[in-house]
């Protein structure tokens, strides 16, 4: 029982991280129809920047703020300078371009900060909390991860549901031409969507770094699980991304715990295959039905 509880707690914490990565992918997919394969690499890069600030005796919170800010800048710059040029071409072009960005960002990080492992501070204790006589697989740091992610989720819901900026962004994603006719500056909204995704991804990068340690490709696995989560959720739905993240987190925790940690990646592959065979549109996406 104790083991089950531990694995579940582990799965939920990791799942939240995958959910955030999935959410970043959904934000971009929904608005620009581009699957951003560089999302993990962008997060890796911003976390290196944060790490550099901590090393130069900056505070942890300053480092996090700079990471999120640079996530926004990197996202916006990539959209403005690169993605905008390939958006309207063949569908494969943005895929190749974002894959290229992934390679470039990882190489760049290697050149600037070296290829070796670097530590990243956790700020809160990573020791499990003791309840009764048992030490749970849930630390103060895990609690902080949860609170940070839930805060971001709530902020995004408020932004999209209750503000006019969010309304403009949704309209630009659903029907760019109609939005334009209503005076929405759609181009700006797309840039903003990429910036937001950059912020959300940067948060995920900084939150997993203490456990995984920094290296140029430390986000690769996280990205793949986040990508799986996004596909499970249907790529269109932010709620789907969050649920998908939790599903992937839990399944991987159980697979890793009961069947062996080497099977985790296979577990993700299995989820992906099952979902794609049973519900190719994802669990949370309604297939668009046109009324005539």
């Amino acid at each position, binding site marked *: 029982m104790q083991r089950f509880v531990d694995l579940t707690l582990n799965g939920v914490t990791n799942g939240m991280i995958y959910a955030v990565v999935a959410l970043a992918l959904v934000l971009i997919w929904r608005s620009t129809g581009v699957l951003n394969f560089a999302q993990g690499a962008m997060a890796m890069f911003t976390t290196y920047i944060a790490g550099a600030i901590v090393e130069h005796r900056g505070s942890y919170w300053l480092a996090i703020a700079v990471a999120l800010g640079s996530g926004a800048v990197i996202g916006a710059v990539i959209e403005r300078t690169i993605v905008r040029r390939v958006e309207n071409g063949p569908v494969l072009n943005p895929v190749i371009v974002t894959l290229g960005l992934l390679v470039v960002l990882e190489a760049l990080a290697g050149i600037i900060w070296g290829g070796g492992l670097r530590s990243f501070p956790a700020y809160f204790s990573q020791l499990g909390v003791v309840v009764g006589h048992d030490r749970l697989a849930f630390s103060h740091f895990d609690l902080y991860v949860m609170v940070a992610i839930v805060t971001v989720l709530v902020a995004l819901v408020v932004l999209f549901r209750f503000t006019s900026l969010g*309304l403009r962004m949704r309209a630009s994603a659903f029907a760019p031409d109609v939005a334009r006719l209503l*005076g929405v500056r759609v181009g700006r909204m797309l840039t903003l969507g990429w910036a937001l995704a950059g912020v959300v991804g940067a948060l995920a990068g900084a939150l997993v770094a203490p456990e995984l340690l920094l290296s140029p490709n430390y986000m690769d696995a996280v990205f793949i699980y986040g990508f799986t989560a996004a596909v499970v959720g249907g790529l269109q739905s932010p709620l789907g991304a969050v649920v998908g993240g939790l599903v992937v987190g839990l399944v991987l925790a159980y697979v890793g715990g009961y069947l062996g940690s080497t099977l985790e990646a296979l577990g993700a592959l299995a989820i992906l295959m099952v979902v794609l065979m049973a519900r190719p549109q994802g669990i949370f996406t309604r297939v668009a039905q046109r009324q005539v």
Partner: protein
Amino acid sequence: MAGLTVSGLSVDYGHVAALVDVSFEAELGAITAVLGANGAGKTTLLRAMTGLVRPRAGTIRFGDKDLTGRRVEDVVRCGVAHVPEGRGVIEELTVEENLRLGSLWRSRRTRRGYDEVFELFPALAARRHRHASTLSGGERQSLAVARALMARPEVLLLDEPSLGLAPIVTGQLMRRLASLSRDEGITVVLVEQNARSALSIASAAVVLNLGRVVVADRPQVVAADAQLRHHYLGF
């Protein structure tokens, strides 16, 4: 002040000329009907007027403002609202969100209140918090027009608002448009295949054929010309 003036407008789609040297003036505060068969260039004309397609030649002016070559978002900010063909409501948003979206570029003081458009289109009030995907064809058309009105436009470009509507609903819509134009002085350019109902409320008519203006005259004159009616208007 001059009205909405289109002069020498030409649009090409590749090697195909969609509009050739189209000129007309829509009088301020009046309804100008643009009529013609399918493929006459009516939709292209509206799309060129709002900057959705780039004309090869010609100018579009509204009062002292030159709209030619401006971006769609900026044409809208000159007070020109365009209700596209096929309604263009955003199905994923609620009725109220669609309406709000229409008013966002205006300052709060200039925006129209929801109550005012609900008075004009009472059916929408009951559906206020429903998704636009649940609306009927007539309700969608009402929503599209109501949404354009939210920003208190000076010019309203309507592309086939009667398309797919029952005759009674079309009649209602036309009467509302007529009173809107009269009461608020909105300049309306009404593109219609349903020539008879459009002519009934218009104070000027432009007939297009194969991208060229065949005739621009008072609606009575157009309606009285049997040959014109027979060749281009189908009634």
